[in-house]
């Protein structure tokens, strides 16, 4: 309620100054990750479509660092006038429990949550298992010998493993990598055996026969890899966490005037609808979401609950999700 009143005030104060014709100058888009990353690619391909609707340029600036926290804090330090956008990925939803920052997306206004990645497990071709059940059996029979890649605690791979280990005890050797790209390369070179990664990053390698798909960490099959079974077939109790997956979205600071939010929402919804953007997302194996308003907030909240509690239960959270009133999924 307090936030609402505040934002109404801020909106009033700002709308008196020529806000009617938003935007009247260039907009700065702050990208949370570096040049060439998947967030960067997604944002640079949606922005030209949004620019057309807005009738203003969006100057895209990469401000990488602190798992995205630097960009998030930067945008929150700017005026809430709709001229500074945060273009980010899922990471801020974990800041609070990991103790990285005291803000997350619940403290901002989502303009559009554009797409979601589908997590999956892949294995190197020589691995002596082909399905989820075979993998579980093999690991139980040979504790400690299977090397599983990871992208650090709190990364997607660690959450997927925490999800699975909340149901079955697995003794694996975890080898951390600096991102899923390097880990998938190491998988092909035989340095690790199994890697939890997003479908988009692995799909081309699977189709070329350079690695094999074990399971999709989702509650349904996917048209891109129709022969791969979802994890719920082996572990039905994971249903409560799904659908889950890293996402890309555009956000503005709390308190941004309504007309600016409306205009931006319209612009990015149009961008997410564009044929070439949809085609790009499909080839990269991301599911189009194009969520704004309340549905976007709901999705973000669910993501936060699932990740925060899994991380907490797996024992590497610095703070309990309860401290931030994050409900259990």
């Amino acid at each position: 309620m307090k936030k609402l009143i505040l934002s109404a005030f801020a909106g009033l104060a700002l709308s008196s100054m020529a806000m009617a014709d938003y935007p009247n100058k260039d907009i700065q888009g702050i990208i949370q990750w570096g040049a060439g990353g998947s967030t960067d690619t997604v944002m640079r391909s949606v922005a030209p479509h949004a620019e057309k609707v807005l009738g203003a340029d969006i100057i895209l600036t990469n401000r990488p660092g602190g798992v995205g926290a630097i960009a998030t804090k930067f945008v929150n330090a700017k005026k809430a006038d709709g001229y500074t956008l945060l273009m980010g990925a899922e990471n801020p939803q974990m800041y609070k429990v990991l103790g990285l920052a005291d803000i997350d997306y619940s403290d901002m206004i989502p303009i559009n949550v554009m797409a979601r990645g589908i997590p999956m497990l892949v294995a190197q071709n020589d691995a002596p298992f082909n399905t989820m059940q075979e993998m579980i059996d093999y690991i139980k029979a040979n504790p400690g010998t299977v090397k599983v890649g990871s992208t650090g605690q709190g990364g997607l791979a660690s959450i997927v493993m925490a999800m699975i280990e909340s149901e079955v005890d697995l003794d694996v050797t975890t080898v951390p990598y600096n991102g899923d790209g390097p880990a998938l390369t190491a998988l092909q070179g035989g340095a690790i055996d199994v890697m939890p990664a997003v479908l988009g990053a692995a799909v081309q390698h699977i189709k070329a026969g350079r690695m094999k798909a074990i399971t999709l960490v989702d509650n349904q099959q996917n048209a891109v890899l129709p022969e791969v079974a979802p994890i719920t077939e082996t572990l039905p109790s994971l249903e409560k966490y799904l659908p889950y997956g890293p996402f890309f979205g555009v956000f503005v600071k709390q308190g941004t005037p309504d007309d600016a939010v409306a205009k931006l929402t319209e612009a990015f919804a149009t961008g997410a609808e564009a044929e070439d953007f949809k085609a790009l997302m499909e080839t990269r194996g991301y599911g189009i979401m194009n969520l704004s308003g309340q549905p976007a907030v709901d999705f973000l909240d669910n993501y936060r609950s699932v990740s925060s509690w899994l991380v907490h239960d797996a024992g590497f959270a610095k703070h309990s999700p309860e401290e931030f009133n994050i409900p259990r999924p």
Partner: protein
Amino acid sequence: MEALNYFALSWLSPELLALTALGTFLGIYVGAIPGLSVTMAVSILISFTFSWDVNNALCLMVGIFMGGVYGGSRTAILLNIPGAPSAIATALDGYPLAKKGLAGEAIGLSTVMSVIGGFVGIIVLALAAPTISEFAITFQPRDYLLLAILGLTLVGSLSSGSLAKGLFAGALGVLVGTVGLDPLTAEERFTFGVIELWDGINVIAAMIGLFGVSEALHQLHHLDKAIIKQKITRIIPPWADIRKYFPLSLQSSFIGVIIGALPGTGGDIAALMAYDQAKRSTKKPDVPFGHGAKEGLIAPEAANNAAVGGAFIPMLTLGIPGDAVTAVFIGALFIHGLNPGPLLLVEQPHMFWFTVGNLTLANIFVLIFGLTGIRIFSKLVECPKGVMIPLIMLLSVVGAYAINNSVIDIWWMLAFGILGYFMRLYNYPVGPVILGVILSKLMDENWRRAILSERGDMGQFFANLFSSPLSCVLFAAIVLALFTQTPLWTKTLKPRLFR
């Protein structure tokens, strides 16, 4: 025959030809200006060329890549500010040449050697891409660790005076490289609770400070000294020189192409390794290394341009980026509706020869643009110091800011500038610091990965090391590198063996 058609695609279309030329030209300047990187330029081009035909966009980007890697040598030679980390080794001997009035000759030589390196990279890409990429991905964490240690033995070559001072500088560099959130566990290291330090200290900021700013501050000692007249009669290196150094440039190019093809390493490490190798294998340089040895200029320049072709090897065959720039290329191909992955060459067979043709064309433009305009650039060094130094300072500040759009990088640049000033004053070498920063992550991450893969069992680690032929070769190279730095070798054996 079909291959030839695709190869010549960009040669025969006036539009593609012009775009490649434009890209190469722009690339040289992007590469030369510290703080502007090829990665940055190529990602800006992604939005810029969004609605273009994919071939046009690729021509421009390939041009920028080729030109940019070459361009880094310009400012390294003229101002001692390497335009990019891959030009650090170039500054070590290129700048002393400029101080002797030989800037024109140094740029000419570096251009020709870059082009030779570029061609070697392209030829290897064209002939052996699948074999090399399969080899490159078999590098295990322990092999990367050995590679990083091999690189660190360079500290010995880079410290001219006291070895203790060199070791200090190298260790400082390694430590600086570990600052920030540990990429493997997200543990904070030396961050003192400051969020801006999470991402560590940027290597380019440290580089601009240690090389450019500290040198500019030193030049203030000689404000009243007469300006060095540049000899610009000879720009294109004589044929005899090219022939004499050809074996060295080939050797450096092969180092460049392999290191470039490894997914975890790029042109910066390639150039430093080639420099070290040149220093080791050159029997009697006319001028000692570090004081303007031509060999010290040739090796890194050939290697870093050969690494361009190398970086495309895993990218085109497997969809695995060979370095940061090819990672952006992969993004660009996605945006243009292609699937850069192991199936790219099956789905788009023309892509391979088209890229090879493009790279060749861009390499020829590097030769053309590189050898023109040298006179004007050499004049830059003749500019009075009172004018040059303020401008270098401004460019350093803007360049440091531009890396990540962050004021923090300016502060680091200045801190390293002042530290570097005193280090130079008291004969601490600054080269090993940058070497340490560049190799730090490679060493730290792969050391821990290697140990974790064996569940902390050191016996198993060594057993695997000696049972893998690749690891054995790398281990032997380290032993050899250390041995050739001992007095037993330099004072006793080397003079006898190479009389």
